[in-house]
């Protein structure tokens, strides 16, 4: 499950509403905006095969991920971008504390719109997205910031927005390769989100301040890691997070958003620290 923290930026690649789930709508920032946020993940329950057990070391892992996401629209239907995270990890235990900070693994991606059906105040879109995660983070030490490997991402995105409601879905696959002698298990991620414009009730003339609320389910199933041909039984597993969030669009060029995530399903393989909770606070700004 610790490896999942390095993959946090995958979920953090969400662009435009909603907060954690990526969308096929490549607008909102005219392809020239910046998204950034602070995400905190807290893991402090030792689980064995999904059941909580006592931890003689009383361990708590806290990870802070601070990515900067810069997308650029090459055309109205094609977008490229980069995600560059800064990561801090801290493991506290009664045997001592360990921490590390620095750049994490960066990702470059390309998103392509395939289907667009527009009606008045309504749109339905499908897109695909591919990405390459680069080993820009330090993979050494007890709390590695990167995987040391070049990994590949494939995602399918769907979105339907009508008036005040928005419905989004995402399915993604992370194909991981060998890095620093370890090959992390491949990971299948799935996300679903519902968004609702709370205020104003009638959005007439643009621009107007806007308050949106979201409820998301963000899940993943990860395989075990292997090193030297041997599978590590205490890696990989299943995780499903329930993520309510709120988003305030203040004007033409900026918004603020916040969300918490709590596990509704947390079944790491073997013995691992489970996810206690996660929280995100961020902004999106159109630079020019």
């Amino acid at each position, binding site marked *: 499950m610790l490896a999942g923290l390095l993959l946090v930026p995958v979920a953090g690649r969400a662009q*435009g*509403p909603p907060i954690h789930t990526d969308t096929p*709508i*490549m*607008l*909102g*920032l*005219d*392809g020239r905006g910046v998204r950034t946020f602070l995400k905190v993940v807290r893991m402090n329950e030792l689980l064995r095969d999904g059941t909580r057990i006592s931890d003689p070391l009383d361990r708590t892992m806290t990870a802070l991920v601070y990515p900067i996401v810069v997308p650029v629209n090459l055309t*109205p*239907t094609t977008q490229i971008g980069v995600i560059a995270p800064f990561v801090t990890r801290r493991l506290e235990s009664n045997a001592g504390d360990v921490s590390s900070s620095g750049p994490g693994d960066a990702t470059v991606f390309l998103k392509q719109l395939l289907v*667009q059906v*527009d*009606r*008045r*105040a*309504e*749109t339905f879109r499908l897109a695909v997205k591919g990405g390459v995660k680069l080993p820009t983070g330090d993979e050494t030490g007890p709390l590695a910031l990167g995987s040391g490997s070049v990994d590949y991402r494939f995602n399918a995105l769907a979105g339907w*927005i*009508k*008036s005040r409601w*928005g419905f989004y879905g995402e399915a993604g696959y992370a194909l991981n390769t060998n890095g620093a002698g370890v090959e992390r298990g491949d990971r299948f991620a799935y996300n679903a989100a519902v968004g609702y414009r709370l205020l104003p009730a*009638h*959005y*007439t*003339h*643009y*621009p*107007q301040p*806007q308050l949106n609320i979201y409820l998301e389910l963000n899940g993943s199933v990860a395989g075990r890691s292997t090193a030297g041909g041997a599978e590590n039984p205490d890696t990989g597993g299943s995780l499903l997070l329930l993520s309510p969030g709120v988003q305030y*669009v203040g004007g*033409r*060029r900026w*918004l603020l958003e916040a969300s918490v995530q709590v596990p509704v399903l947390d079944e790491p393989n073997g013995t691992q620290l489970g996810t206690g909770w996660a929280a995100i606070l961020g902004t999106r700004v*159109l630079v020019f």
Partner: protein
Amino acid sequence: MNQPMRALTGAILAAALLWATPAGAQIKRVVVRVDGLSCPFCAYSLEKGIKRVKGTGGPVINVEKGVVTLTPITGQRVRFDDLRAAVSKAGFTPREVRVEGVGRIESVGDRYALVSEDDRRLFFLAPNEVLSGVLSAAGRIIEFNGTLVDRKAGEDSAVRTLALVAAAAREGTDAK
């Protein structure tokens, strides 16, 4: 009539003509229907794109109705194709373009056209019931509201065709 009286009479006649001739025969408003406008934060790209189109003033975007309203700049030709292209480039789907204004109906061969006060051809007029109903006002200033007709294959005219939705002759305007 002596010289001063001739001058005075000429000045009065000129003033009368100026008063009788409505100024500013032109396109007053353009309304573009835009589909897919469901993300208000996303409308920024649409606003930026529309502002770059020559001939139009700042757009007013109504997200609920899905329309963009523009005020043409006096004396400049509105580039309707550029407007539609700007909407598409912003990631939305342009639908009908509605034009409101003031002009004069003139016969051009077997067709009719709307012309401005300085005889600049604004639109050709598509034959329909509204046009038939207002032909009696040919040569007079009319207030019109119409929908831009899509170009036919191979058509490359700078002057677009308008299908009138409503038209009425202005009171007190006589045929030339």
